[in-house]
């Protein structure tokens, strides 16, 4: 009887981490798409994400929910604000702009990011954006979380180790370093109650949380 109970408890735990990986993947995907074109966000999927995440009790959920409420109603004002922030340069969404203010090593930053993609077996082929754009880096984390989810689902501990290591490295060296201060800058540059203000708050809360979460999970690696 004790063995059965222990087995069920372990199965529940295993399932909860599969769901957590799926939730993280979906959140990275949502945030990434908002940096490209908010009109093309799948609002139904976004609402489903929030609904499924309620039971998780993750601390970034309130800000994520507030963001999803605004995504449903993207206005002309939001698009103008987006242009001012990201196109005209009030708050450039590129890692190189935030880690190298002098602008001398920006090429090196882009190359380093591309190398990280290549190490994961991915080639960068987007002609419209640079590899260190927020949407691309968030998209990369989405793929790594997908990989983690699949490896957990099939019980592949060895593959899981590899994906957690890649996530930890990428967050420590790239996204986790520049994205939180970028979001704080974005929050200061946006109007109160705006879509991009909500994106800044949710993005900051989520990536800060994920950076620490992955650090804890990677700390358990044998």
């Amino acid at each position, binding site marked *: 009887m004790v063995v059965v109970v222990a087995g069920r408890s372990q199965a529940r735990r295993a399932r909860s981490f599969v769901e957590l990986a799926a939730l993280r993947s979906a959140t990275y995907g949502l945030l990434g798409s908002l940096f490209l074109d908010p009109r093309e966000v799948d609002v139904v999927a976004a609402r489903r994400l929030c609904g499924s995440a309620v039971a998780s009790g993750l601390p970034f959920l309130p800000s994520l929910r507030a963001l999803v409420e605004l995504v449903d109603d993207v206005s002309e004002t939001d698009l103008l604000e987006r242009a001012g922030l990201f196109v005209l340069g009030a708050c450039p969404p590129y890692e190189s702009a935030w880690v190298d203010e002098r602008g001398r090593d920006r090429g090196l930053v882009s190359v380093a990011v591309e190398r990280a993609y290549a190490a994961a077996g991915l080639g960068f082929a987007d002609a419209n954006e640079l590899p260190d754009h927020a949407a691309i880096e968030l998209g990369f984390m989405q793929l790594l979380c997908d990989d983690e989810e699949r490896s957990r689902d099939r019980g592949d501990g060895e593959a899981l180790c590899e994906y957690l290591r890649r996530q930890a490295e990428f967050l420590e060296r790239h996204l986790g370093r520049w994205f939180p201060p970028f979001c704080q800058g974005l929050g200061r540059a946006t109007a109160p109650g705006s879509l991009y203000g909500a994106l800044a708050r949710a993005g900051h809360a989520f990536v800060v949380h994920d950076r*620490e979460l992955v650090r804890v999970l990677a700390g358990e690696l044998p």
Partner: protein
Amino acid sequence: MSVEDPVTVAICDGLADAAAVRDALDKLPGVHPAVVRGLSRRPERGAALAVTEGAERLVMVVRGDGASRDEVQRQARRAGLDPFAVELVRVTDAEGATPAVALRVGAAVARLRAFGGTAPEQLRPRLLDEQATTSRRSLLTLPPLTYDALPKVPEERCHEPQRCRLCVDACPHAALEAEPRRIVVDAARCDGCGLCVAACPRGAVDLPAASPAEYEARLDALLTAGADALVFSCRHARLDAASWAPVEVPCAAMVTPGWVLQALVHGAGTVAVVPCGDCFCGDQTERRVSYLRELLTLLGDEHATARVQLRPEAEPPGLPPLARSRSPQRLSEPVATAEVLRGLGDVGSLVHDASPLGLVEVSDEACTACGACATVCPTGALRLDQTAGDASISFDAAACVGCGRCALACPEAANGAIATERTTDLGALARGRVALKREPLVRCQSCGRPIAPRRLLERVGELVADEPLLGILAERCADCRSLRTVAERS
């Protein structure tokens, strides 16, 4: 938050006298307690009640063997509550609807009303029941998550641009690092002990559930409600002191002598500080208790040993408080501690390494009134003033925390220009701000603006051994020298 903001108080129906507990708590201002079925084992019901009532803060009054703090936090998070906006008050069967329970709940409500919320960077996830991971397979079934609080130092409140770093030096885990213009917290190293909070004389460090404002609110509630015996206990300490009003702290070393003194003049007759016994906090607490007893003896208190205790006696001695001050408690400010002491006496001096205050002395011969000490002083105890005729360095003992930053910054320290010591000097506190050094100002012969104190210019001349240079420096200010050079060249 104000008294009008709702704080849900949920009481487990499994308590020995739940209805009486509810009736006792109903008398607390702004509180509407409710009895909840099975709350001790099902904390999610308390969280649901808070959501229903539209409250963002929750106190749960549960049995001693109820759900763990981590489980309560988890359920609070699931309900959308801030993980540190929930207080747990455990009640034993013997306690029932006693005034002690109402006291603790009232203090919990007060603390929650002073709670400012948790920023994303102040939460560190942690796996419950941490175990050594020995295989890749075990990664698939990790234990559940919980969250610990991390401190944050807002740039606008911090004195780091002047290289204060008192919080960095106070941290026993090397978790704080000074970067240009800000303090950064290493989440992996931080233990949440709160020593950085207590070390900052400006109250600039914010630690959820352990900020000075929250402790001030909790202490105020306890003392206003009539608690006369307080015990500050480390979260890891085993405490058996039912007759004392408890105040849990992350680490006993967070409790400075100033905290104890302020409690003693705001209604407490006796204060105990209980360390966990497993870390350095034991030694530090002993030294502070020793300091307090010596200080109280100096002030003529015959009950100093009973008034400040290291391990609380089973029954408090029933001493009256040292005073009943009406001014609010301000735990992080040295000036508040000095005000307490000024009210207790004005004669006597105690040199002790645990003194929360300090004294600075300046050599009239060696000091050049350059003002470097005043620039770095985190509390403004040292101040540089300029009048029409001179520059003066003044010192206020009430604001000095004895940190020694002034001596580190002084360019003439090697010549004995400045000395600082951890000293509680009641006479100095009574005197207020005094001038330590006054030096005539040399003014620009062109524009009349001050150049520097005379002694400073003389000292520069001595160091560079160049009389003509001294003459140039003392004649015109930098702006007028530049204009003159441009004019000569053209």
